[in-house]
Each structure stands twice: as C-alpha cells, then as structure tokens.
C-alpha cells in the first residue's frame, strides 16, 4: 500500500506548517532554571531556521550526515530538524555511550559536523578525533567548563545561531529553497542499532517512512495537538525518537524534556503526560518502587492498598476494556479509585495518560495487568528501528497481556515455515548504510523485512512473539526451549533483576540470576540482616532461599504449559556482579547478550551442569570512571524443585 502523505512530505515542511497553523501552541518544553521553559511552534521554527542557516554557513551540505550527542534537549531536536532542512541526515548517538563506541558511526558516515550537549560529550568527541579525521566542526550547547578549550572547529551553539540569524537576514530565500528541495523519499535520519552481535548498523529511514507510520498510529489513537509527551529515553533510540520527533511533527503535540535523569519522576508528575511510552524495564522499576514504598507505609494504608489492588486485579482490566462488571464491584472499584488508584496514578504522574505503550521486549503479564488494573490504558506495541516502530498495536478494548495486537493499517505480515515473522510496510527502512550485504539479508526482493523474531497469530489475529528465531532452540530431548520466555518469567519477581537461562542442546535448564539490590536490600533490612553491598547480599543463604522460592514458582507455572514443561529450571546460581552494558553483557537498551555471557562465564555454566555445589570466580569489572578492578568470590549453586508435568505427559 502506497498511501500518500501529501505535500507536507518532509519534517521541515511539517515544521513550517505547524508554525503557520498553530504557531502559538507549545511545541517543546524543557525544565530548566526551575520552570518549564516553553518554545511555541513559531519560536521553534525560528530557532530551526537560524540554526539551519548557521550550519549551511559552516558547510553542511545535502546528503551529508550530522551527529547529535546529547540528552533530550530542545536544541538537539532543533538541530535534527535544521540538518533535515538542508537535506543533511541527522545521526543521533547514545549520550551514555563510551567515546570508543562513538567512533564507528562517525567514521562510517564520514561525519563532519557534530552537536554535543556539554563538556562531557565534547571531551568524548575530542578523544576520538584522531580516529575520525572527517570530524571538523563540533558545536556545543552548554559552554560550562569549555572556556579554555582551544580546539579549532569547536564552536558554541549560540555563536552558530548568531551566524545563522545573520545569514538568514541576508538571504531568507536560500533556506526556503533548500526546504522545498526536500522529498519524502530522501533519507530523514539514521539510527545505529546496537545489535546483539557484531558491529552496529546504520538504519536509514526516509521522511516518508517515518511520517507515514507516525501518522497511521496517531490516527489510530486519535492524537491531537493537545497531547503531551515526556521525552526521557535516549533520543538516539527510535523508540524515543518516534514519540518525541516524528509524531509531534505529524500531529503538532508538545513534548517535554525533564531537567535531568534524577528528576524524571518529579518532572513526569508535574507535566502529567497524556501519551506515554515506557519499555517494560521502566514499568518494572516503577512497580518495584511502588511496592517498596508501600511496604514502608502504615498498617492502614498497606491494608487499603492490598484490599483495593485485589479488587483492581479482578475487575480493573475488565472495566478498562468496557466489559460488564457487577454493580458492587463497580462501587468497590470507584472507592478504590478514590483512595488508591487515583492517588497512585497521580504520584506516578499518569493521571492524564490516555494512551500508554510498552514495547522493546516481552512484558510480564502481572506487570502489564498491574498498570491496566489501575485504569491506565497500557497497550503493547510491536516494531523495530527497521520498521519505523509501528507494526502492530493493540487496539483499545482488545488488549491481551501475551500478544502485541493486530497489524497497524498499511502493514502486511506473514511467517516463514521456521516461524520467522516477515513484514512489508510503508515504514520499512531504506537500507543499512554502506552495508548492501546486510540490507539484502534483511530485506528480500519482494520488499519483505525478515525480523528474526519467532511467533504466530492467535485466533483473533493478534501477533504473539515468543523469542528470537535464532534463540528458540531445543533441549537434548528435542522439546522447545525459549530462554527469553523463561527469563521474563523470572524477572517478573521484584527480587530478580536479570536472569540468563541455558539449555540449548542440554538435558535440562539451568539459570544465572541477578538479584535486584534495592528490593532485596529492603527485604534484608526488614529482617535486620546487615549487609555490605550487592556481593555480600548475593552470597547469603537467606537470599538463595528467597530466590529458590521464586524459581520454584516459575517451575510450577511452566508445568502447566505442555510445550515447555520440560524447560523447568533445575539449578541456579546468583551472579557475583550485576550484568552491565559497560561490560558488554547487556546491550545499550539493556537486553542480555546471552551468547557473550555464556562465553564469558563458561566456567560457571559448566559448574551448573557438572552438578558442583560451588565454583570460584574472578572477574574483571569496569567502574563508571573507566577504571577496571577485579572481584573474586566463591559462588554457590543451588538446586530447585521441579514439578511433574502431567499435562505434558498426557499430550505426549
């Protein structure tokens, strides 16, 4: 389907449109200097124009790339659009990436211009400068600490803006013409996917792809210029960018940038977004926080919370889906809303949320139901960088915890015999930058994108994703082994932060566990158990006991599901360190890199299967400041009870 997107076929054109149509409405807010500083669409357009002219003066040309390194800041988004005005392609980079990780994209795209948020980011760029000879211009937003930097080509954003304003006054027609030259088929942005293996790939997305998908989803949810979004995830991630750039440019809604990472909770409460997006790990962290804070509450509040959360679990989701509920339950839910759910939504900043999405990985059904039972319209979404996000979305009233909904209008789906999902959509990426080989592997001649995800449709036509095709394996006896599925089940317990399951080609399943230091720490304090830190906590008998109970509960659940009843976890150990993206054990989006972990901790895996009771480890860890150190510990391995899978036997 080749639905037209009209004459406003690029983001700069959309911007000018909003500046005309709703110039006085807020386009972007930022908590800065104590208040929400606001740019209207008109002001934002002015800023973009000036910046574009400034960049042109400094030599940014059509087809070139420009790097953007920083947190969610109005100026980062302004620069994104300014580059697009000139036909250049913005490349947002993860602001928390190490300097070395930034080198590849800059070399790969031969980037000459970069905007850095502050001294920290400038330092990183200067560090890799010898490896990136193309990088000539580094602009910085916050001048603090940069006064004595003598690097040529280093220039303040404000200076660039001044330069641009002067140029704009001299020749306003230049920019108009440049914007007019833009076409929907042009590349709009390039996002580097972290990639669970190998080097990152630059995913090139066109204006058409992004605008088309953003609009399809916006129409489906009835988004308008009255909506408000909090931009708090890395702008280099498509999952944030689509909500804080593409969709506001399509609908004209306002995005809000928090003051800092530490104040996201408070800022969210102040803003009260109407449209919200959070990956499951954020929702999980929030729930953990709710549970911990509620444990500190007085007896009356705890009783109220327990009672009414029970009511909510029973009928909250049904009420949200518009199903029939008895009058008594309605009354109870109304009371609960007054005493618990309403205030809870309020302190979480979710009072005004009309539509909330979660995506990126599977979400525990209880976690998912928790938010829905509170009356928050949380829905699942399926998509990826290559598809401009929106592939499947659960429509209102048809929300299930274990599927991601039917295809969004315009998207075609089908499966290969190996259960791999294929997608054809106007939102598909153009190519992997300078990587025709990979492009060809991912997108076939007929335009089908091979997702690498395994799944199937349920009877209602909703897509259900189990795992990555390459990760879905078999135990030695040939039964299905879906490690991610197991891990997600484990991670739903508040005490377990991360889990890694092994079993491919083995006779049984074993697992690594990362405990949640905060939740378990709290639990320990309640029991007057002194401890010195994560490592100490992770080696306690009591904690092993706690985790064992969780594992056994998962086993009991698994015993109910015929296909994977054999995947019950027989043995586990609690890892001596927290898996960390800095140690490459997780991706930047915090997904476990299972292969890497298995390799790195091969001795531990062997010990699990060899039936040993304990194993000695020594591990290198990288601290935040870049230093490395060694941890050594004796890890104990515990057995967990497994359950007879009656159903499985009967099925067999």
């Amino acid at each position, binding site marked *: 389907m080749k639905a037209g997107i009209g004459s406003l076929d690029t983001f700069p054109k959309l911007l000018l449109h909003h500046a005309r149509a709703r110039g006085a409405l807020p386009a972007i807010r930022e908590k800065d*200097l104590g208040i929400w500083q606001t740019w209207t669409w008109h002001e934002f357009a002015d800023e973009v124009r000036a910046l574009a002219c400034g960049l042109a003066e400094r030599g940014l040309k059509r087809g070139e790339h420009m790097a953007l390194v920083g947190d969610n800041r109005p100026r980062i988004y302004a620069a994104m659009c300014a580059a697009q005005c000139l036909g250049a392609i913005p490349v947002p980079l993860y602001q928390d990436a190490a300097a070395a990780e930034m080198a590849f994209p800059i070399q790969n795209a031969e980037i000459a211009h970069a905007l850095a948020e502050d001294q920290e980011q400038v330092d990183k760029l200067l560090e890799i400068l010898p490896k990136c000879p193309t990088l000539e211009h580094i602009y910085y937003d916050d001048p603090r600490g940069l006064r004595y930097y003598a690097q040529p080509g280093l220039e303040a954003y404000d200076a660039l803006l001044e330069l641009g304003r002067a140029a704009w006054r001299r020749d306003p027609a230049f920019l108009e013409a440049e914007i007019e030259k833009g076409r929907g088929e042009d590349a709009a942005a390039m996002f580097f996917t972290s990639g669970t293996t190998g080097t990152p790939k630059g995913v090139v997305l066109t204006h058409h792809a992004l605008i088309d998908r953003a609009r399809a989803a916006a129409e489906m949810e009835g988004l308008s210029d009255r909506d408000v979004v909090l931009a708090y995830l890395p702008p280099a991630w498509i999952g944030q960018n689509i909500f804080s750039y593409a969709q506001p440019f399509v609908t004209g809604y306002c995005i809000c940038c928090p003051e800092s990472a530490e104040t996201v909770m408070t800022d969210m409460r102040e803003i009260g977004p109407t449209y919200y997006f959070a990956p499951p790990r954020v929702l999980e962290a929030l729930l953990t926080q709710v549970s911990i804070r509620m444990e500190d509450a007085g007896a009356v509040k705890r009783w109220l919370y327990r009672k009414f959360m029970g009511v909510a679990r029973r009928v909250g989701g049904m009420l949200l889906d518009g199903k029939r509920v008895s009058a008594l339950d309605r009354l109870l839910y109304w009371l609960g809303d007054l005493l618990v759910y309403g205030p809870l939504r309020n302190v979480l900043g979710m009072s005004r949320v009309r539509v909330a999405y979660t995506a990126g990985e599977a979400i525990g059904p209880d976690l998912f139901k928790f938010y829905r039972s509170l009356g928050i319209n949380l829905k699942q979404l399926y998509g990826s960088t290559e598809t401009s996000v929106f592939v499947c979305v659960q429509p209102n009233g048809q929300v299930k915890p274990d599927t991601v909904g039917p295809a969004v209008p315009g998207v075609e789906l089908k499966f290969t015999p190996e259960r791999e999902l294929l997608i054809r959509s106007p939102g598909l990426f153009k190519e992997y930058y300078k990587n025709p080989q990979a492009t060809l592997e991912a997108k076939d001649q007929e335009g089908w994108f091979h997702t690498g995800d395994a799944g199937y449709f349920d009877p209602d036509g909703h897509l259900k994703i189990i795992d990555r095709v390459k990760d879905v394996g078999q135990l030695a006896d040939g039964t299905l082994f879906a490690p991610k599925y197991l891990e997600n089940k484990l991670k739903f317990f508040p005490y377990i932060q991360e889990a890694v399951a092994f079993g491919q080609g083995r006779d049984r399943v074993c697992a690594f566990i990362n405990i949640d230091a905060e939740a378990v720490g709290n639990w320990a304090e309640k029991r007057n158990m002194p401890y010195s830190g994560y490592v100490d906590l992770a080696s306690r008998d009591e904690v092993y006991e706690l985790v064992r109970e969780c594992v056994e509960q998962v086993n009991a659940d698994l015993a109910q599901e015929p296909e994977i009843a054999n995947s019950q976890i027989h043995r586990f150990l609690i890892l001596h360190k927290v898996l960390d993206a800095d140690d490459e054990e997780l991706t930047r989006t915090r997904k476990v890199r299972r292969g890497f972990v298995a390799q790195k901790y091969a001795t531990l895996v062997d010990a699990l299967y060899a039936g040993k009771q304990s194993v000695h480890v020594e591990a290198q860890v990288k601290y935040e400041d870049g230093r490395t150190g060694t941890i050594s510990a004796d890890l104990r391995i515990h057995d967990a009870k497994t359950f007879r899978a009656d159903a499985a036997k009967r099925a067999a």
Partner: protein
Amino acid sequence: MSREARIGETVLSVEKVSLSFGGVKALQDVSFDVREHEVRAIIGPNGAGKSSMLNVINGVYHPQQGTIRLRANGAWKEFSDMDSHEAAALGIARTFQNIALFKGMTVLDNIMTGRNLKMRASFLEQAIWIGRARREELKHRRAVEEIIDFMEIQHIRKTPVGRLPYGLQKRVELARALAAEPRLLLLDEPMAGMNMEEKQDMCRFVLDVNDQYGTTIVLIEHDMGVVMDISDRVVVLDYGRKIGDGTPEEIRGNQAVIDAYLGVAH
C-alpha cells in the same frame, strides 16, 4: 586565553593588621595582597589566625592596627573599621567554616537572600506585590536559578536546608555567596569534613566560579593537596604571624613553613 593570563592587578591589600582578643593576639602585623582573578589560599596550623584574617577582611572583626585597602570600581577604598554589611556592599562575600545557612528557609530562599543588596523595592511595594517589587522578585529568581544550575543543586531547590546532608549544605552556602555576584569571595575551609568525591566536586566548583565569573577567591584550606592544586598563591600563617607567601612551589620549599607544620602535632 589561558587561566594564568587573566590574573591582573592587586585588588585587595592587607597592611600590617594586628588583632587581639583581651590579650590573646590573633594576628600580628600581617600584610599580603590579592590580585584580580586569582585563587589565593591562606594556610596554617590550627589556631594560626586564618579565620580571624577572613573576619577582619569582611568586617566581622575590627583590627586594632593596620588597614585594609580594596579596589572597587577602579578606586581604592581604605578602611580598618567597617561593618560586615558594608563589606558586602563593597562586593565581598564569604562562606563559613561551620555552615552558616538560614536553617528555617529553603535552598531557594537562602540563595535569594544573597541578592538582597540588589533589591530596590521598598517594603510597602513588596507588601502590595505589584510593580517593581514583583518584577525584582522574578528577575532575581531567574538569576538565582542560574546559580542553582551552576552549582548543580536543582533537585533540592525547594528543600529546607536543615534537611540536607553536610556536603550539599556547603554547596548551598557557596551558592548563596555567589548570588551576591561578589568581586572578592572568601571561603573558610570549603572542603572541611568532606569525603574525597565531595572534595573533588567542590574543587571543580571553586575553579569554575573563578573561570566563569572571574571572581577573585581567598580561601582557607587544610588539605594541602587541594591547596597546591587550585591556588595561584599561598599565604602561610602561624601563631598570628605571616611566615610564608608565594606560589605553591615556593611554599613547598619554604623551610619556615615546613618547620611550622612539623612543629605542631596535627
């Protein structure tokens, strides 16, 4: 332009100052000068008269002998006896060894008090909250927010200072002093009682203040590492007398200073 190149003419000169309390001689015949934009450290063993020296400079104590000369707006002002709020009006701000915040007020209000000298509205205008009073209040709020941003204390701006941990209180106190936009900033042991990380942060703030606002800084500090790192010149006091004056390198090699430090059992 490098940092050193910004250091200019003398802005403060302490000449033969003596101070005593009922027979106890806190300072005897102390003279030294401070140049524009420099970071000047005063060091010495406990009881050497360091805090007294700061108290003399900003008018909390009045020396029995000697004068202080301060260059303000291109002209020299000479004084030996003035009130501390007059010193503030001349552009001298300071922090205290034992934190002297206003415990019952929020961080924001504490820092706002630092701008009291810049407010012109009468109390009647303030009571009615219109016109100049309101404008001033909003204008100075913005200026204070810049300082809050600078000192990275956004997350606590509305917290009563009494509830803050020690390290943050020190930071708030520095912020309050900065709010006055002083030309001369006196810091009395800004890093006392801090852990390593807090000390590093505070050093960075002191240097940033010096860089960004060009403020001349006189500081008392015990941690010799810190003093050697961040100060341009150092004065050494012992028993109320000056026993050394020069760059950190010179002080390191000064025998009198070494003796003074070895002589006391700290």
